[in-house]
């Protein structure tokens, strides 16, 4: 499956780009994170502390153990600070 993976705030800064297209067979968000973290030091740094990473699949907030089947867009970002 082909996924658009988006990064925001300091995840974007650590990875050095706001988005990338990934070919993956990851079953869950957590599997995808493992693949991404293994790509290079920048990705590894971004995903080093998963307690501070939040995720949205197709623009809905989801837990890290959520399945990826049918997903087209996955976003990673720190806890939100709106308002």
């Amino acid at each position: 499956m082909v996924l658009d993976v988006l990064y925001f705030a300091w995840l974007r800064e650590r990875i050095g780009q706001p988005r990338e297209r990934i070919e993956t067979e990851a079953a869950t968000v957590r599997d995808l994170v493992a693949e991404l973290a293994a790509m290079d030091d920048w990705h590894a740094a971004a995903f080093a502390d998963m307690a501070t990473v939040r995720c949205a699949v197709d623009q809905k907030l989801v837990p890290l153990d959520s399945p990826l089947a049918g997903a087209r867009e996955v976003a990673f970002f720190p806890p939100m600070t709106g308002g």
Partner: protein
Amino acid sequence: MSARVQTEPFDLAAELQGFGAGSGAVVTFTGLVRDDSGQMQGLEIEHYPGMTEAALEEYGNEAARRFELDGWLIIHRHGPLKVGEPIMMVATAARHRKSAFEAAEFLMDWLKSRAPFWKREIGPDCTGGWVAAKDSDEDALTRW
């Protein structure tokens, strides 16, 4: 009944023209850029285009349903903002004050930790760090 994400400032008065007609109670909340350290130039706010608008719309509709609102409005800015500028506003209109207050607080609690915005402080040398999420903001959600 609308949500907007924009870089431009907003005019509270203009936004409230006709808002709450037929209602008994209108509550507004405005968040402003505050400089606690005396060293901050402003904030840079990043958001997730597409998801942001959908999330604000969803929380607004949820508030309308829960608190039987006659009207609601959410405006949230992104991009660079100077100290003292308005960051965002919510307005709620209901028959009675209790519903209007509760709905505004509900929306603020959700916006603070569930709407995809991230704040970065701009310091005197134009550098600065990302604002950390507060446990108290996360905790505030448990009451709803």
